[in-house]
C-alpha cells in the first residue's frame, strides 16, 4: 500500500471545488474536514462565486477565489483538486504550487505530485444496470467517497461523510418573498418540483412525464405546486407550467442556488431528476423523491437520509449521454418506461412519512 505524506497542519491549501452543483455539495464534508484540520494554516476555496454562495456563513476562515484567475492560485503550499480536469492540474502547476493532489485522470498525472489512479470496474455488466460501458472504465461511485480517500492520502480524516448545507436567514427571506409574490403564505406547505433540463438533454424527465406525476400528486395532496428550474433551463419549466393547472412557477428571474436551497428546505416534498437540486435538497435533509434516466445511480449513492430514487432498467442504460443515441421512435426509453405509478406511490408515502 502506498499512502502519501501527511499534509502539514499549517499548510496553505487551495481546494479546487467541483464545477457541478451536485459535486460541489458532495465536496462539503471534505471542506469541513479540511477547515478543522488546518489549525494554523489557510484554506482557499476555488470555485464559481454563484456556487460558493451555498457556503454562505460557513467556513469563515476560508478565502474564496475564482479558479479562472491564475493569480489566485499562487502562494499556496498545496492544491487539492476535486475536479478531474487537466486544466485545474495545469493551473496548479503553473502557479508553482509545490504539492498537487488529485486523481490521475484526463492525462494530467504528470502534473501532479500525488496522483492516485481512481477505482475501476471490470467484468460483466453490473446487476440492475443495462450496460456497463466499454473498455477501461472508471467505477461510478459517489464523489464524496473518492474525495474522502484523496483526503486520507494526505492524512486528513473526513469524520462525517454526509454532505450538509445550512440554511441562512437571508435565503429563507428571499425564498419566502418569492413565494409571497406567487400567492403563497410564508408558512404555507407546498410541493417543490425542480423540472429544469438543458434543451434537448436526455438527463431531464420530459415535461409530459412530469405532468403525469405532478398533476395527480398536487390534486391528491391538496398542496400548491412550485415549479423551479435553473437559469437556461426554463423551457421545460414553462411547458410544464402551462400543463399543470394552478402551478406556481419560479421564473424571471430564475432562482439562484441560495433561493433553491431555501425552497428545498421548506418544501413538504422535493421532486427532481438526478440533478444538482437533488443534492442540494438531500444535504438540507429534505424529503426527496428523485428520478434517474440515463445516469448511473452509483454516482450519487452516497449518504442520504430521506430520499427515494426511482429508475427503470433499460438495456441501453445508464448511458450517461447528454443526447439520447437511440432513433427517434425509441428515444428516451429510460424515461418513457419509468412507471409513473411508482413515482406517485413513493411521493404519497413520503408525504405521509
Amino acid at each position, binding site marked *: *500500500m502506498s*499512502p502519501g505524506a501527511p499534509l502539514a497542519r499549517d499548510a496553505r491549501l487551495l481546494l479546487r471545488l467541483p464545477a457541478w452543483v451536485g459535486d460541489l455539495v458532495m465536496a462539503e464534508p471534505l471542506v469541513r474536514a479540511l477547515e478543522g484540520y488546518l489549525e494554523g494554516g489557510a484554506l482557499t476555496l476555488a470555485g464559481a462565486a454563484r456556487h460558493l454562495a451555498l457556503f454562505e456563513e460557513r467556513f469563515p476562515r476560508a478565502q474564496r477565489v475564482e479558479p479562472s484567475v491564475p493569480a489566485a492560485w499562487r502562494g499556496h503550499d498545496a492544491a487539492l483538486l476535486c475536479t478531474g480536469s487537466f486544466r485545474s492540474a495545469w493551473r496548479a502547476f503553473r502557479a508553482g504550487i509545490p504539492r498537487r493532489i488529485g486523481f490521475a485522470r484526463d492525462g494530467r498525472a504528470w502534473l501532479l505530485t500525488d496522483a492516485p489512479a481512481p*477505482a*475501476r470496474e471490470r467484468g460483466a455488466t453490473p446487476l440492475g444496470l443495462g450496460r456497463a460501458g466499454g473498455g477501461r472504465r472508471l*467505477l461510478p461511485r459517489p464523489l464524496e467517497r473518492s474525495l474522502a480517500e484523496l483526503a486520507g492520502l494526505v492524512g486528513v*480524516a473526513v469524520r462525517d461523510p454526509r454532505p450538509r448545507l445550512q440554511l441562512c436567514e437571508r435565503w429563507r427571506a428571499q425564498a419566502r418573498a418569492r413565494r409571497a409574490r406567487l400567492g403563497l403564505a410564508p408558512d404555507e406547505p407546498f410541493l417543490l418540483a425542480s423540472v429544469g433540463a438543458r434543451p434537448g438533454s436526455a438527463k431531464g424527465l420530459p415535461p409530459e412525464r412530469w405532468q403525469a406525476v405532478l398533476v395527480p400528486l398536487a390534486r391528491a395532496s391538496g398542496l400548491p405546486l412550485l415549479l423551479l428550474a435553473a437559469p437556461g433551463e426554463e423551457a421545460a419549466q414553462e411547458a410544464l407550467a402551462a400543463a399543470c393547472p394552478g402551478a406556481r412557477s419560479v421564473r424571471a428571474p430564475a432562482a439562484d442556488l441560495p433561493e433553491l436551497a431555501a425552497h428545498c428546505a421548506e418544501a413538504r416534498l422535493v421532486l427532481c431528476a438526478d440533478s444538482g437540486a437533488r443534492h442540494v435538497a438531500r444535504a438540507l435533509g429534505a424529503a426527496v423523491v428523485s428520478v434517474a434516466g440515463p445516469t448511473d445511480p452509483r454516482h450519487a*449513492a452516497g449518504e442520504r437520509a430521506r430520499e427515494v430514487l426511482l429508475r427503470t432498467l433499460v438495456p441501453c442504460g445508464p448511458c450517461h449521454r447528454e443526447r439520447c443515441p437511440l432513433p427517434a421512435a425509441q428515444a428516451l426509453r429510460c424515461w418513457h418506461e419509468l412507471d409513473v405509478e411508482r413515482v406517485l406511490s413513493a411521493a404519497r408515502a413520503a408525504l405521509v412519512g
Partner: protein
Amino acid sequence: MATPILEAAAADGRFERVTVVLRAHLAAVLEGGPLAPHLCPLAHGASEGALYRALAPDAVLLLSNSLGAAWRAFGAGIPVRAGAALAGRGPLLTHRVVPPTRGGRRLPIPSAHLMADAAGLLGILPASLHPRLHVAEGARAALRARLAELGLPRTARYALCTPAAAFGAAKMWPAEQHARALDLLRERFGLRGVVTGGPGEEEVLRAVARAARHAVLDLSDEPRDLEKLKALVAEATLLVSSDSGPRWFAAALDVPCVTVMGPNFPALTASALERCEVVRLAGLECAPCLERVCPLGHHRCMKALAPEAVLEAAARLLAALPAGAAR
C-alpha cells in the same frame, strides 16, 4: 462495517432470497436485528464450497478479499461472482472492482468503501455506510444485573477497555498505558474502568486491571462472547480500544470510542468516525508498517503514545455528544 450493505441487500426486492454466510462465531454479532433470518453460520471445519453448492445462489457478493473465497465460489459454479480484484483473484470474478492505486500499489482506502463499491456491482446501494448493530433489551438488562453482582451499580457509568488485538502484538498498547488512561478517565469524568476481551486475552486484561490505580472491573474470569460484548459496549459511556473489532461495535451502537493505533494506516478504517477518534503518534518514519510484530523491536508507535492523548480525545468526543445522547 458490512452491516449497511447486508441490510440493503436483505431489503432489496430484486432478490428472492438473501443468505449471509459467515463464520459461526460471528453470527452473534448480527443476531437480534433485521439480518437474523438471513444468517447462515459456517461451522468450524465445514466446507464453504459444499455450502455454496447446497444454497445454489444466482450470485455471490464476496466482502472478504481472499483468493480462497473467490476460488470456492468459482468452484461451486455460482454464475455471478462480485468482489474486489485483490489477492490475484480477479480472473475468478465475473464482476470486479479495482481499488484506487498509487504508483502501481493499492491506495489504503476504508474497507467500508471497498465493500460498498463491490456491492454496487450487484446494484446494492445502501443509503449510508454507517454500521448498525442491534442489542436486545433483555441482553442489556442481564448484563447490568451481572455487573451489579460484580460491584458495578446498575446506573454507574463506565469506560470499557478492550486492550488486546487478535492481529498481533504490534497493535497492542502496553497494559500500563491502558491502565493510566482508565485512571485519567476516572479522575476527569468519574468513569469506572471495565476491561474485557476475547478468549486467550485474559492475561492482558488482568495486567491492565493490576496496573490501574482505581478498581478496574476485570471481566477475564467471566464467560465472554460477542453477544455479551455487544451489550457491554452498548451500555458503556466510552470505549477505549485497540484497532480491533470492538471499535466497530462502538461505531455501530453510536458509543464514543477512542482507538489507539500504531502499525496500521488510519485511512484503511477511516469511516464511521462521527463518534470515534483515532489516537496515534505522528511523525514516525517506520509507521505504519502493517506488521504483526514490530520489526525494529522498539514498538515506538505504541510505547511512545501518551495516555493523556486518550483523555484529550475522550474529552472532545464526550463534549461533542448531542444533548440527550450521553450515557
